[in-house]
Each structure stands twice: as C-alpha cells, then as structure tokens.
C-alpha cells in the first residue's frame, strides 16, 4: 500500500483537544473503515441524517466560521446557502481534490491516510444542500489517492454509510470518484465543472455562479478536500467549539504545507493565527533554514501569493493578518528560500508554470503569460534590455483583474510583489547582464 513519507505533526495533534484533522494520520490502519469507525468516524454523518434538518446543518457550519481551505477562503456555510431552495433540478456536490498549487500537498495526505474523513464531510455537505450524487475530482497524477478513495467508498457502501435509504432515513447518496488529466486550471471551480462534464478544462464566466448553475447546469457546490474534512468536526463538537479555535475571523485549524529551504519540511496542522516565524524556525516545525543560511524570502500561501521579505514575517497565519501584511493565506503552502536564491530565477520558474497552465480562453492571460515568460527568461539569462523590467510591470498590469478566472492574477501577483520588494535585483540583471546571486542547488 503506497504511503507518502511526508512528515506530519500527528503526535502533537493527538495530544491536543483543539487540533483534529491530523489526529490519526500516522495510524496506517486509519484507512480501513473499522478503524475509522472505532475512532468516532461516521458519527457526525449519522447525527446529521437522523437528528438534523438540512438548514440546521448549514447554520451550524455558517456559525462555525469555517472558510474554504483551497485558496479563496470563502465561508463554507454561506456558499451552501446559495443553492436555490426551490430549484426542481438535481443538486451536486463536487469535492475539489485537484491539488496543484505549487507548494501545496495537504489534501493528498488526507485522502491517502484518512479517506473516510473526506467521504464523511462530503456526505454531510451533500445532505445540507440536497444532493444525492456527489463527486470527488482528483488530479490525474494522484492515481494512488483515487484508488484509496475508491476502496474507502466501497467500504462505506458496505457499511451502509452510502447508498439507498441510509440509516433508514430515506436519504439516498451515491459517490463517484473522478480523475483529471493533469491541468492546474481544473482546480478553479468552473474549469473543474467543465472538465467533469468531459470538456476542455476552461473556466466559465460568472455569473451564473455554480451554486445556481454548475454541473450540467444544475445547482452545484464545489468545496476543497480540507474544508470538507473539517465539517464532521464542526458537527461533532459544535459551531461554538470550532469558533473558539483560531482567531475571531479565521476560526478553526488549518494544515500548512512547509517546503523549500527548511530543515524539517512537512505538513503541520495548527490553529489559524499561528505565528509564521514559529512555523519556519521552531524545532517542532520547520526547524530553521537549511544549512543555517540567511532567510531571503517566504511565499506564504502557495505560488500565487505575494512574497514576503524577512522583515515581514512577524505575522500570524490567518486570513486577515496575511492580507494586512501584504499577501494572502491561499492554500496554506509556505515556501521558504534562503540567501543563495536569485529572485528572478524563482519568477522564471513560476512564470513558465503559469504560461503552461493558462487554459487559453482569454487573451490577457494566454498572450500575457507567454510574453512574460519570454521577457523574464531573457532577463534571467542576462540578455535583458533597458526597459524590460518596466515592460514586465506593464504586462502584469494589463493581466491583473482582466481575466475570466483568477489564474491571470495568480500569475502576476508574485511577480509584482518581487518587483516591489527586490527591484534592485531585477535591475541588476539588466545593468550587469547576470544574476546578483548565483543559484545552483545541488541534489545530493
């Protein structure tokens, strides 16, 4: 059975009465339904089906303050409440497991090690919105996650948690495991729905929003894996308990994927509002910078979020603090890099990625990312001409806010932040025809 060797803080979570998502992820038996049930699994689902009305479920999640963990941070309960009550059409729930934002590797751990928690969360959300067929869209590369989810779904049917007339309530619910074809854009919810319909993964113009017209033009809710895995805990412990975790506006706990130049990369579940510095330097988390080098910068929420310099990292990891500090919480992917890293080299990597992943639907993103890649490659190679840096800035300005979906913004926000924070380093490439810092990372 495939099991990623990724580090988690499950031991710490098990001792805490607040953290909950990672409690059993180091128990290899947790993937089996018997163990999951023994650990209190499907209790929330049963409670919801037998004791609660859908509107009560929505209210509970609304009151908990749970927000989307995929990147946008939209309140989950509020999203659910947008499904029209009087629509005669079927409703659908899609769990977004197209985890592809560079730096992010948390949903994979949940699917791999606690697949039933994902199913339970999906089931509760389905009941809340009146859905009888739920989908999980898993990125194609995660073939092992899809296998794990298939197996778990089969067990859930056998144990009567899915299927017809669940727990004698009269409620029917089916689950479909769907795998993608390797396209970052399909993590954007409308592109995901197109892809699920068998189309090219291109985003749709909104409105209509998926909650009104989503999959097959029916009301559809798309939620991230981690968001849904949090839902059973909200039901089990109550909205007030969940609200007591984290900060006033960012309640609950969240998984942060720590990667790059740290001594202990891994996935760490912490309460929202956790200090970023502690995550990077504390011995129980990142353990400090690789080779005890000097920190140069941090990308706090996945590759689409604005960068932070060392003097900006005295900041707490919650939605509001990061916006105030000039960035975003995003998907919670904290990427750390040290002094030996050329800033234009990082941007070259990322811009290649966004150019490759642009779906091609709208001109500013399709053409703009290609122009950016060409220019930035030239600058990084030392072939940049006077005015190139200004040109990069101008193209970014013509993409930002002018595209159908957030991919365009995602491509330029990191660039713009580095132009502000490390302008001298960009200019150095033009003036001297070489990088200010030689970047050469040896694989050992």
């Amino acid at each position, binding site marked *: 059975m495939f099991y990623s060797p990724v580090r988690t803080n499950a031991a710490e979570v098990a001792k805490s009465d607040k953290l909950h998502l990672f409690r059993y992820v180091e128990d290899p038996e947790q993937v089996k339904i018997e163990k999951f049930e023994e650990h209190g699994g499907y209790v929330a689902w049963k409670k919801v089906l037998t004791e609660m009305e859908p509107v009560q479920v929505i209210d509970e999640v609304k009151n908990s303050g749970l927000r989307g963990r995929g990147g946008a941070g939209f309140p989950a309960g509020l999203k659910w409440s947008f499904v029209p009550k009087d629509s005669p059409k079927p409703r659908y729930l899609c769990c977004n497991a197209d985890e592809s934002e560079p730096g992010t*590797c948390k949903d994979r751990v949940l699917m791999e090690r606690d697949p039933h928690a994902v199913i339970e969360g999906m089931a509760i959300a389905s009941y809340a919105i009146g859905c009888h067929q739920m989908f999980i869209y898993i990125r194609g590369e995660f073939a092992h996650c899809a296998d794990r989810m298939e197996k778990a779904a089969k067990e859930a049917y056998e144990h009567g948690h899915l299927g017809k007339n669940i727990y004698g309530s009269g409620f029917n619910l089916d689950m479909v495991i769907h795998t993608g074809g390797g396209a970052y854009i399909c993590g954007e919810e409308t592109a995901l729905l197109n892809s699920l319909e068998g189309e090219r993964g291109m985003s749709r113009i909104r409105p209509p929003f998926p909650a009104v017209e989503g999959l097959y033009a029916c009301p559809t809710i798309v939620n991230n894996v981690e968001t849904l895995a949090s839902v059973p805990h909200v039901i089990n412990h109550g909205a007030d308990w969940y609200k007591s975790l984290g900060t006033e506006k960012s309640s609950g706990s969240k998984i942060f994927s720590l990667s790059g130049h740290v001594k202990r990369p891994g996935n760490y579940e912490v309460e929202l509002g956790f200090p970023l510095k502690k995550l990077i330097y504390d011995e129980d988390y990142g353990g400090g910078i690789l080779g005890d080098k000097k920190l140069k910068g941090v990308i706090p929420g996945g590759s689409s979020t604005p960068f932070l310099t060392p003097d900006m990292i005295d900041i707490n990891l919650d939605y509001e603090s990061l916006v105030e500090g000039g960035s975003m919480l995003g998907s919670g992917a904290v990427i750390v890099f040290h002094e030996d890293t050329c800033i234009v080299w990082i941007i070259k990597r990322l811009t290649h990625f966004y150019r490759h992943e642009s779906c091609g639907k709208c001109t500013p993103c399709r053409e703009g990312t290609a122009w950016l890649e060409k220019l930035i490659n030239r600058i990084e190679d030392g072939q940049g001409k006077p005015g190139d840096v200004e040109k990069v800035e101008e193209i970014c300005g013509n993409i930002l806010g002018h595209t159908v979906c957030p991919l365009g913004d995602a491509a330029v926000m990191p660039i713009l932040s580095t132009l502000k924070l490390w302008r001298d380093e960009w200019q150095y490439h033009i003036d001297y025809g070489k990088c200010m810092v030689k970047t050469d990372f040896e694989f*050992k």
Partner: protein
Amino acid sequence: MILTKESVNKIREKLQQYPKPKSAILPALTVAYRQAGYVDEGIYKEISKIINVTTVEIAEAATFYTLFAKEPRGKYLIQVCHNISCALLGADSLIGYLQEKLNIKIGETTEDKMFTLVTVECLGSCSTAPVMQINQDYYERLTKEKVDQVLEDLRSKA
C-alpha cells in the same frame, strides 16, 4: 482493436456512474492510457463506440490534458517535477543526473525502450522534494543513491 476486453468493461462501468456520457471521456481516456501507454485517433474511435460520444469530442478533450501521451513512450515514464519547491532542492541537478545516467535528453526514450524522461509541473509532493513520478508511482525525497536504486530495481524487474 487496441483496447482489451477488460479495458472496455472498465469504461462501460465508468460510463454508468455519470448522468451524461460525455463525463466518461476523461475516465475512458485514463483507462485507455493506462493500458496502452498513449492515446491516439484510433483509440478515440474505439472509445467513441463504447460511450457514444463523437470522436472529435474525445479528441477535443484529450488534446487539452497533458497526462495522456499522444504517442508510445518507454516502458517506464519518468516524470521529474521542476516546479519551485523541487527546484529549490536541486531538481535541475536531479534532471541532469538522470540525463547522464540514462544517456538521453529530456523528452527522449532510451534505445531499449525502457525509460522515457520528461519534466512536469508541480506533482503535489512539495514537502518531500525533490520528487519524480514513474508511471503511477511517486518517488520522494530523492537522493542520488535512491535514484540509482530505483532505476536498478525497475531494470531488474523488466
């Protein structure tokens, strides 16, 4: 016919799960790709007959997604992530090492048709970088020693 009876049955099974047959395009392509190692016009036609969706609709989807190779590759497709988290931990040097070791360049296949080497975008394994995926399997926290071992194991298995 390229698709085996088993693949056809798998596609039929998938088809039944969806409210609309077009949704079965990606699952069908996945089944076909896993069996054949590539997809092409001939395979689109075969899928078209099974799920009753036009060939052009299948081609339209297939050409958008990078996962489905459009021509045969080596027995083992080595996909090395070169995105940011892996790059910070030496992905370039890993790619160089693999090129040297296999004596091929990125995009090429070894003469014995055993290995094809490609670079890919983020594989979602950033906290265990550097990482590569060979066919369906992930290989994480790579070191030279580990890469040597993996290649040797695959060679002896073949």
